[in-house]
Protein backbone atom coordinates (compact mmCIF):
# COMPACT_ATOMS: atom_id res chain seq x y z
CA UNK A 1 0.00 0.00 0.00
CA UNK A 2 1.22 3.49 -0.87
CA UNK A 3 0.99 4.82 2.68
CA UNK A 4 3.18 2.01 3.98
CA UNK A 5 5.69 2.29 1.16
CA UNK A 6 5.97 6.07 1.44
CA UNK A 7 5.47 7.10 5.07
CA UNK A 8 5.77 10.80 5.89
CA UNK A 9 9.38 11.54 6.77
CA UNK A 10 9.24 15.26 7.36
CA UNK A 11 6.51 17.69 8.38
CA UNK A 12 6.71 21.47 8.11
CA UNK A 13 3.90 23.22 9.97
CA UNK A 14 2.98 26.86 9.50
CA UNK A 15 1.01 28.61 12.24
CA UNK A 16 -0.20 32.08 11.28
CA UNK A 17 -2.89 32.66 13.89
CA UNK A 18 -2.69 33.37 17.60
CA UNK A 19 -5.89 31.96 19.08
CA UNK A 20 -5.70 29.06 21.53
CA UNK A 21 -7.30 26.67 19.05
CA UNK A 22 -5.11 27.62 16.10
CA UNK A 23 -1.90 27.44 18.09
CA UNK A 24 -2.78 24.15 19.78
CA UNK A 25 -3.81 22.58 16.48
CA UNK A 26 -0.28 23.28 15.27
CA UNK A 27 1.36 22.18 18.55
CA UNK A 28 -0.57 18.91 18.78
CA UNK A 29 0.30 18.07 15.19
CA UNK A 30 3.93 19.06 15.70
CA UNK A 31 4.34 17.10 18.92
CA UNK A 32 2.44 14.16 17.43
CA UNK A 33 4.83 14.09 14.48
CA UNK A 34 7.89 14.19 16.76
CA UNK A 35 6.42 11.32 18.79
CA UNK A 36 6.07 9.27 15.60
CA UNK A 37 9.72 9.83 14.79
CA UNK A 38 8.92 12.24 11.94
CA UNK A 39 11.35 15.13 11.39
CA UNK A 40 9.39 18.23 12.43
CA UNK A 41 9.83 21.93 11.71
CA UNK A 42 7.38 24.55 12.93
CA UNK A 43 7.22 28.02 11.43
CA UNK A 44 5.36 30.78 13.28
CA UNK A 45 4.26 33.88 11.42
CA UNK A 46 1.85 36.83 11.74
CA UNK A 47 -0.34 36.45 14.83
CA UNK A 48 1.05 32.96 15.31
CA UNK A 49 4.15 34.72 16.66
CA UNK A 50 2.19 35.24 19.91
CA UNK A 51 2.72 31.53 20.59
CA UNK A 52 6.51 31.94 20.68
CA UNK A 53 6.68 35.45 22.18
CA UNK A 54 7.66 35.32 25.87
CA UNK A 55 5.14 37.94 26.91
CA UNK A 56 2.10 36.34 25.27
CA UNK A 57 2.80 32.62 24.87
CA UNK A 58 1.09 31.37 28.02
CA UNK A 59 -1.86 33.71 27.88
CA UNK A 60 -3.44 33.08 24.48
CA UNK A 61 -7.13 33.72 24.02
CA UNK A 62 -9.92 32.22 22.01
CA UNK A 63 -12.29 34.38 19.96
CA UNK A 64 -15.70 34.67 21.64
CA UNK A 65 -17.21 37.15 19.17
CA UNK A 66 -18.31 35.89 15.79
CA UNK A 67 -17.53 32.27 16.62
CA UNK A 68 -20.63 30.26 15.72
CA UNK A 69 -19.22 27.06 17.22
CA UNK A 70 -18.91 28.64 20.68
CA UNK A 71 -21.24 27.10 23.28
CA UNK A 72 -22.18 27.90 26.86
CA UNK A 73 -21.44 25.24 29.48
CA UNK A 74 -24.41 22.91 28.95
CA UNK A 75 -24.43 23.29 25.18
CA UNK A 76 -26.63 26.33 24.50
CA UNK A 77 -25.35 28.71 21.81
CA UNK A 78 -23.09 31.46 23.12
CA UNK A 79 -24.62 34.88 22.29
CA UNK A 80 -22.14 37.03 20.41
CA UNK A 81 -23.18 40.08 22.44
CA UNK A 82 -22.00 38.32 25.64
CA UNK A 83 -18.58 37.92 24.14
CA UNK A 84 -18.31 41.69 23.77
CA UNK A 85 -18.51 42.21 27.56
CA UNK A 86 -15.22 42.99 29.34
CA UNK A 87 -13.55 39.95 30.86
CA UNK A 88 -15.66 37.35 29.06
CA UNK A 89 -12.98 36.47 26.52
CA UNK A 90 -10.38 36.12 29.27
CA UNK A 91 -12.74 33.97 31.35
CA UNK A 92 -13.66 31.67 28.48
CA UNK A 93 -9.98 31.37 27.53
CA UNK A 94 -8.97 30.49 31.08
CA UNK A 95 -11.72 27.85 31.11
CA UNK A 96 -10.41 26.36 27.87
CA UNK A 97 -6.89 26.22 29.24
CA UNK A 98 -8.04 24.45 32.40
CA UNK A 99 -10.00 21.91 30.35
CA UNK A 100 -6.89 21.17 28.34
CA UNK A 101 -4.78 20.81 31.48
CA UNK A 102 -7.19 18.06 32.61
CA UNK A 103 -6.43 16.14 29.42
CA UNK A 104 -2.70 16.46 30.11
CA UNK A 105 -2.29 19.02 27.31
CA UNK A 106 0.51 21.29 28.55
CA UNK A 107 0.73 25.10 28.49
CA UNK A 108 2.24 26.52 25.29
CA UNK A 109 5.78 26.96 26.62
CA UNK A 110 5.94 23.44 28.04
CA UNK A 111 4.46 22.03 24.82
CA UNK A 112 7.17 23.76 22.77
CA UNK A 113 9.80 22.40 25.16
CA UNK A 114 8.42 18.89 24.63
CA UNK A 115 8.65 19.30 20.86
CA UNK A 116 12.20 20.61 21.18
CA UNK A 117 13.16 17.75 23.54
CA UNK A 118 12.10 15.29 20.84
CA UNK A 119 14.21 17.02 18.21
CA UNK A 120 11.53 19.26 16.65
CA UNK A 121 12.65 22.70 15.47
CA UNK A 122 10.88 26.00 16.00
CA UNK A 123 11.30 28.96 13.65
CA UNK A 124 9.97 32.51 13.48
CA UNK A 125 9.08 34.54 10.39
CA UNK A 126 11.33 37.53 9.74
CA UNK A 127 8.77 39.58 7.83
CA UNK A 128 6.09 39.28 10.52
CA UNK A 129 8.65 40.12 13.21
CA UNK A 130 9.61 43.29 11.36
CA UNK A 131 5.93 44.11 11.03
CA UNK A 132 5.22 43.65 14.74
CA UNK A 133 8.57 45.22 15.73
CA UNK A 134 9.66 42.09 17.56
CA UNK A 135 13.29 41.20 18.24
CA UNK A 136 14.83 37.76 18.69
CA UNK A 137 15.13 38.59 22.42
CA UNK A 138 11.36 38.96 22.66
CA UNK A 139 10.95 35.36 21.55
CA UNK A 140 11.06 32.17 23.60
CA UNK A 141 14.70 31.11 23.89
CA UNK A 142 14.04 27.76 22.17
CA UNK A 143 13.34 29.45 18.82
CA UNK A 144 16.07 28.13 16.60
CA UNK A 145 16.24 30.84 13.98
CA UNK A 146 14.40 33.73 12.37
CA UNK A 147 13.80 32.84 8.73
CA UNK A 148 12.76 34.43 5.47
CA UNK A 149 10.26 32.53 3.37
CA UNK A 150 13.07 31.42 1.06
CA UNK A 151 15.05 29.96 3.95
CA UNK A 152 11.91 28.19 5.13
CA UNK A 153 11.52 26.51 1.74
CA UNK A 154 15.19 25.53 1.76
CA UNK A 155 14.57 23.71 5.04
CA UNK A 156 11.42 22.06 3.69
CA UNK A 157 13.04 20.04 0.92
CA UNK A 158 13.16 16.28 0.54
CA UNK A 159 10.97 13.42 -0.60
CA UNK A 160 8.02 12.43 1.58
CA UNK A 161 7.84 15.93 3.08
CA UNK A 162 4.55 17.67 3.79
CA UNK A 163 3.99 21.38 4.37
CA UNK A 164 0.84 22.02 6.37
CA UNK A 165 -0.74 25.40 6.98
CA UNK A 166 -2.83 25.05 10.14
Amino acid sequence: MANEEFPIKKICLICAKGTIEDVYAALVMGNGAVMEGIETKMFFTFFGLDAITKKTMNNLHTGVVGNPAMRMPGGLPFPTILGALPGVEAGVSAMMRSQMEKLDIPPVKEFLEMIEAGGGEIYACKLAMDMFKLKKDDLWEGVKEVLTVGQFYEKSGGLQTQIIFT
Partner: protein
Amino acid sequence: MAQKIIAGVTIDVNEEGYFTNPAQWTKEIAVEIAREEGIQLTDKHLAVLDFLRERFSKGEALTIRSVGNSGIIDIKGFYGLFPGAPMKKAAKVAGIPKPASCV
Protein backbone atom coordinates in the same frame (compact mmCIF):
# COMPACT_ATOMS: atom_id res chain seq x y z
CA MET B 1 -5.56 -13.11 17.21
CA ALA B 2 -1.92 -13.71 16.39
CA GLN B 3 0.60 -15.42 18.60
CA LYS B 4 4.30 -15.03 18.83
CA ILE B 5 6.96 -17.01 20.66
CA ILE B 6 9.21 -14.63 22.59
CA ALA B 7 11.94 -15.88 24.95
CA GLY B 8 10.40 -19.36 24.67
CA VAL B 9 6.94 -18.25 25.75
CA THR B 10 3.86 -18.02 23.55
CA ILE B 11 2.41 -14.49 23.65
CA ASP B 12 -0.89 -13.17 22.28
CA VAL B 13 -0.20 -10.15 20.12
CA ASN B 14 -2.12 -8.06 17.61
CA GLU B 15 -1.10 -7.63 13.97
CA GLU B 16 1.29 -4.80 14.93
CA GLY B 17 3.02 -6.86 17.61
CA TYR B 18 1.46 -5.23 20.68
CA PHE B 19 0.43 -7.50 23.55
CA THR B 20 -3.27 -8.19 23.83
CA ASN B 21 -2.82 -9.69 27.30
CA PRO B 22 -0.43 -7.56 29.41
CA ALA B 23 -0.43 -10.27 32.13
CA GLN B 24 1.77 -12.44 29.89
CA TRP B 25 4.62 -9.92 30.19
CA THR B 26 7.86 -10.67 32.03
CA LYS B 27 11.20 -8.91 32.17
CA GLU B 28 12.84 -11.66 30.13
CA ILE B 29 10.28 -11.13 27.39
CA ALA B 30 10.82 -7.36 27.51
CA VAL B 31 14.56 -7.84 26.98
CA GLU B 32 13.81 -9.94 23.91
CA ILE B 33 11.31 -7.49 22.34
CA ALA B 34 13.65 -4.59 23.05
CA ARG B 35 16.45 -6.43 21.28
CA GLU B 36 14.19 -6.83 18.21
CA GLU B 37 13.71 -3.04 18.32
CA GLY B 38 17.45 -2.52 18.57
CA ILE B 39 17.40 -1.49 22.22
CA GLN B 40 19.58 -2.86 25.01
CA LEU B 41 17.43 -2.62 28.15
CA THR B 42 18.90 -0.88 31.20
CA ASP B 43 17.48 -0.29 34.69
CA LYS B 44 16.33 3.13 33.46
CA HIS B 45 14.37 1.49 30.64
CA LEU B 46 12.83 -0.96 33.12
CA ALA B 47 11.80 1.84 35.48
CA VAL B 48 10.00 3.57 32.60
CA LEU B 49 8.34 0.30 31.57
CA ASP B 50 7.11 -0.27 35.14
CA PHE B 51 5.75 3.27 35.23
CA LEU B 52 3.87 2.79 31.96
CA ARG B 53 2.49 -0.59 33.00
CA GLU B 54 1.27 0.84 36.28
CA ARG B 55 -0.43 3.78 34.58
CA PHE B 56 -2.02 1.43 32.07
CA SER B 57 -3.33 -0.87 34.82
CA LYS B 58 -4.95 2.14 36.52
CA GLY B 59 -6.62 3.13 33.26
CA GLU B 60 -4.68 6.41 33.04
CA ALA B 61 -3.74 7.93 29.70
CA LEU B 62 -0.24 7.21 28.45
CA THR B 63 1.06 10.62 27.49
CA ILE B 64 4.61 11.67 26.86
CA ARG B 65 4.10 14.47 29.38
CA SER B 66 3.29 11.98 32.14
CA VAL B 67 6.58 10.22 31.50
CA GLY B 68 8.36 13.58 31.70
CA ASN B 69 6.68 14.26 35.05
CA SER B 70 7.32 10.76 36.41
CA GLY B 71 10.56 11.72 38.13
CA ILE B 72 12.26 8.81 36.35
CA ILE B 73 13.45 10.66 33.28
CA ASP B 74 12.88 13.90 31.36
CA ILE B 75 11.32 13.91 27.91
CA LYS B 76 14.62 14.32 26.10
CA GLY B 77 15.98 11.32 27.98
CA PHE B 78 12.88 9.32 27.08
CA TYR B 79 13.48 10.01 23.37
CA GLY B 80 17.06 8.86 23.98
CA LEU B 81 15.99 5.57 25.61
CA PHE B 82 13.50 4.63 22.89
CA PRO B 83 14.73 6.44 19.78
CA GLY B 84 12.32 7.35 17.00
CA ALA B 85 8.82 6.82 18.30
CA PRO B 86 9.36 6.52 22.09
CA MET B 87 5.79 6.09 23.27
CA LYS B 88 4.94 3.37 20.77
CA LYS B 89 8.21 1.52 21.23
CA ALA B 90 8.03 1.71 25.02
CA ALA B 91 4.45 0.44 25.01
CA LYS B 92 5.42 -2.48 22.81
CA VAL B 93 8.32 -3.43 25.06
CA ALA B 94 6.15 -2.89 28.17
CA GLY B 95 3.62 -5.41 26.88
CA ILE B 96 0.71 -2.98 26.84
CA PRO B 97 -1.54 -1.86 23.97
CA LYS B 98 -0.50 0.84 21.52
CA PRO B 99 -1.12 4.23 23.19
CA ALA B 100 -4.32 5.86 22.00
CA SER B 101 -3.46 9.36 23.26
CA CYS B 102 -2.74 12.33 20.95
CA VAL B 103 -0.35 14.01 23.37
